[in-house]
C-alpha cells in the first residue's frame, strides 16, 4: 500500500484503541451486574485530568494512573450512591455524571492547560522486541497497554470461570433471585460500579498521560460514548469488546493513513468509516441466537429489597 507501513499501522492501532478498550471493559462488568452507567465519558475525562495533574505534581506517571483510577472510582461511587441507595433513575443519573465530569474536569484542569509532560517509558522486553514483524507491532508498548490486554483475559476468566463472576452475573440477570439466595445485591453492584469507574478513569488518563502528554478541555472527545456502544454491540463479552475496540481504533488510524497516502476515496466516507464498520461487524456477529439473549436480564432496573 503506497506509503503505508503495515507494521507501524498495527502498532499505532493498539495504542489508539487502548483508552476505549479500558473504559469498555469496565462498563462491561458494570452492565453484567445489571447497572447501566452512561457516565463513562464523564469518568474518563475526570480520570484524564486527575491523572495528568497527579503526574505533573508528583513527576510519576504511574502515580498519575493510580490517581486517575481513584478519581474515576470516586465519580462512579457518586453514581452508585445515587442509583443504588437513593434509587434514582440510572439513565438520567449517568447522563448527569457525564455533564458533571466534563465541567469538573474543566475546572480542575484550568491551571494545567499548556503544560507538557515527558512520555512515560515503554516496557523494555529484551529478545521479544527484536522478533521480526511481531516485535515492533506487539512488544514495544507501555505497561498500561499490556494491562488492558491482561484485563480482557482476567475479566473473561472472572465472568465465566469463577464463582464470584457467577454471582455477579446472577445479580445482573435477576436481582430478586440473587437476593433470595442471600447475596448482597447492592454491595456487589457498588463494587462493580466502582471497578467500572476506575477502568474508565485509567482509560482517560491513557489519553492525557500516554497519548497526548497534555491536558486539553474535552480531550476524550466522545471516547466514552464509543466504549458504551461497543459493550452493547459486543453482546457483553470481553473478547468481542477487544475486537470492537481494536476495530474502531484500527479503522480510525487506517482511514487517516489512507487519506495521507492519497487514496481516492471520499474523505467524508473515510471519516465516518470507523463508526460504520464497527457497528456493521459487531451487529453481524450478534445475529446469532446466543448473542441475542446476551442482554443482562435486569440491566438498568432498580433494586429494592422490599420489592
Amino acid at each position: 500500500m503506497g506509503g503505508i507501513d503495515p507494521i507501524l499501522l498495527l502498532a499505532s492501532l493498539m495504542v489508539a484503541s487502548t483508552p476505549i478498550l479500558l473504559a469498555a471493559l469496565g462498563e462491561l462488568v458494570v452492565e453484567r451486574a445489571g447497572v447501566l452507567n452512561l457516565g463513562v465519558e464523564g469518568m474518563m475525562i475526570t480520570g484524564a485530568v486527575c491523572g495528568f495533574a497527579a503526574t505533573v505534581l508528583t513527576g510519576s506517571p504511574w502515580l498519575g494512573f493510580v490517581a486517575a483510577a481513584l478519581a474515576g472510582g470516586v465519580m462512579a461511587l457518586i453514581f452508585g450512591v445515587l442509583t443504588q441507595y437513593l434509587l434514582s433513575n440510572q439513565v438520567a443519573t449517568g447522563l448527569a455524571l457525564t455533564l458533571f465530569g466534563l465541567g469538573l474536569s474543566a475546572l480542575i484542569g484550568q491551571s494545567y492547560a499548556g503544560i507538557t509532560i515527558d512520555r512515560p517509558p515503554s516496557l523494555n522486553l529484551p529478545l521479544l522486541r527484536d522478533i521480526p514483524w511481531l516485535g515492533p507491532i506487539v512488544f514495544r508498548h507501555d505497561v498500561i497497554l499490556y494491562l488492558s490486554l491482561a484485563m480482557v483475559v482476567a475479566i473473561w476468566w472472572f465472568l465465566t470461570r469463577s464463582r464470584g463472576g457467577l454471582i455477579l452475573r446472577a445479580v445482573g440477570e435477576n436481582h430478586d433471585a440473587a437476593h433470595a439466595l442471600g447475596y448482597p445485591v447492592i454491595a456487589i453492584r457498588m463494587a462493580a460500579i466502582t471497578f467500572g469507574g476506575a477502568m474508565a478513569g485509567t482509560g482517560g488518563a491513557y489519553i492525557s498521560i500516554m497519548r497526548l502528554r497534555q491536558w486539553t478541555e474535552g480531550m476524550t472527545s466522545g471516547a466514552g460514548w464509543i466504549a458504551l456502544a461497543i459493550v452493547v454491540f459486543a453482546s457483553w463479552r470481553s473478547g468481542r469488546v477487544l475486537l470492537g475496540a481494536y476495530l474502531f481504533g484500527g479503522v480510525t488510524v487506517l482511514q487517516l493513513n489512507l487519506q495521507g497516502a492519497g487514496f481516492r476515496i471520499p474523505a467524508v466516507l473515510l471519516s465516518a468509516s470507523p463508526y460504520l464498520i464497527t457497528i456493521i461487524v459487531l451487529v453481524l456477529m450478534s445475529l446469532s441466537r446466543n448473542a441475542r439473549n446476551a442482554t443482562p436480564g435486569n440491566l438498568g432496573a432498580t433494586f429494592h429489597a422490599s420489592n
Partner: protein
Amino acid sequence: MKRRSFLAGTAAAATAAAAGLPARAQADKIKAGFIYVGPITDMGYNYQHNVGREDAMAHFGDALETVYVENVPEGPDCERILTQLALDGCDIIFATSFGFMDPTINVAAKFPDVKFEHATGFKTADNVAIYNARFYEGRAVIGHLAGKLTKSNQIGYIVPVPIPEVIMGINAAFIAARKANPDVQFKIIWIYDWHNPQKEADAAKALVEQGCDVLMQHTDSNAPITLAEELGIHAFGQAADMSAYGPNACVTSIVDNWGPYYIERIGMMFDGSWATSDQWLGMPEGVIVVPEINANIDPELRAEADAIRDSIINREYHPFTGPLNKQDGTEFVAAGEVADDGTLLNMMFYVEGIDAELPS
C-alpha cells in the same frame, strides 16, 4: 480601512440625522460580550480571541466591562446565549466563530440597539459588522520555510473542514513551498473537527510514518507540535505561538492577534461612531503575526522568510500572484495579476501540482 470606516460612519450619521433621530451620545461606560466556540484554555484559536479581549480591557481600563462565554455550541443554543448577553446589558457582542453567523443575525434583529460583530462570516446587518483575518498571508511565509526544510520533500498538512478559508491556506502554503522547492509534495488529512487532540495526534503520526518530515496544521490543538518535538521533526504553530510545546520543533507560528481590531471597534462604541463594516485584515494591519523564527533554523533561510513576511506587510507581495493554475490546469490568475478577494473567499479548488482530491 480607516477611510472606509469613516465613510460608513458618516453615512450612518447622515441616515440618523435624516430620520430625525438624535445622534448617539458619547458613552462613558461600555459593556462588551464575547462568545467562544471552544475553551479559552485551548492555547489556540479561542485562547487568542480571549487575549484580544484582555488587550481591550487593558487599553480601556475601568471604562470597559467585558463578559465572555466559552464552549458555546454552534447552532440554536448559541441564540440563547447571545440573547442572554444582550439582555444582560452588553452594548457590543463579538461572536467569534463561523457557525455563530445565523444566530447572530437572528438575535441582532431583536436587539437593534445592541451592536454585533461576527468573525469569519459573510452576513451583515445595520447592527452586525463582520471581520476576518487573512490567515493565508502567514501560510505563504511558513510554506516557504517548509519547502526549504523538508528533506523527504513530503510535507504533512492536517486540516479541519473543506471551506474556502482552509483551502486558501493549503493553496497559499503550496504555492510558496513549490517556489522554494519544486519537488515538494503535500500529504493532506481532513479530520472534520477544529479541535480534536486525539485525532490530530493520530493524523500527525500517520503523516510522519508515511515519510513527512515537516508538519503543518489548520486545526487548533498543539498535539501535532508535541509529537513533532518528540520525533525531532519540524512543525508550525496554528493560531497561537506554540513554541512552548516544541522548543526545537516549532519553526514559527501563525498568530491571530485580534487586540488591535477589538480596541478599534470598542473605541468606536465610546465615541459613538460605530457602524457596520466588513473588514478582512492581515499582516499589514498586525492582525496576523508570524513571530520570530526559531534560532535553530539556518540564518540564511530565516532572512528569506523575514523578507517574504516584510514584503507582505508592506503590501509589495501578494501570496496569490499569477500566473496561477487550478488543479485541472485552467488559469485563474493571469501573469502579473493578483487574485481578488472574491476569488479567494470562494476558493473551492486546489492549485496545480497538489496531488490529492478535494473533498466536496
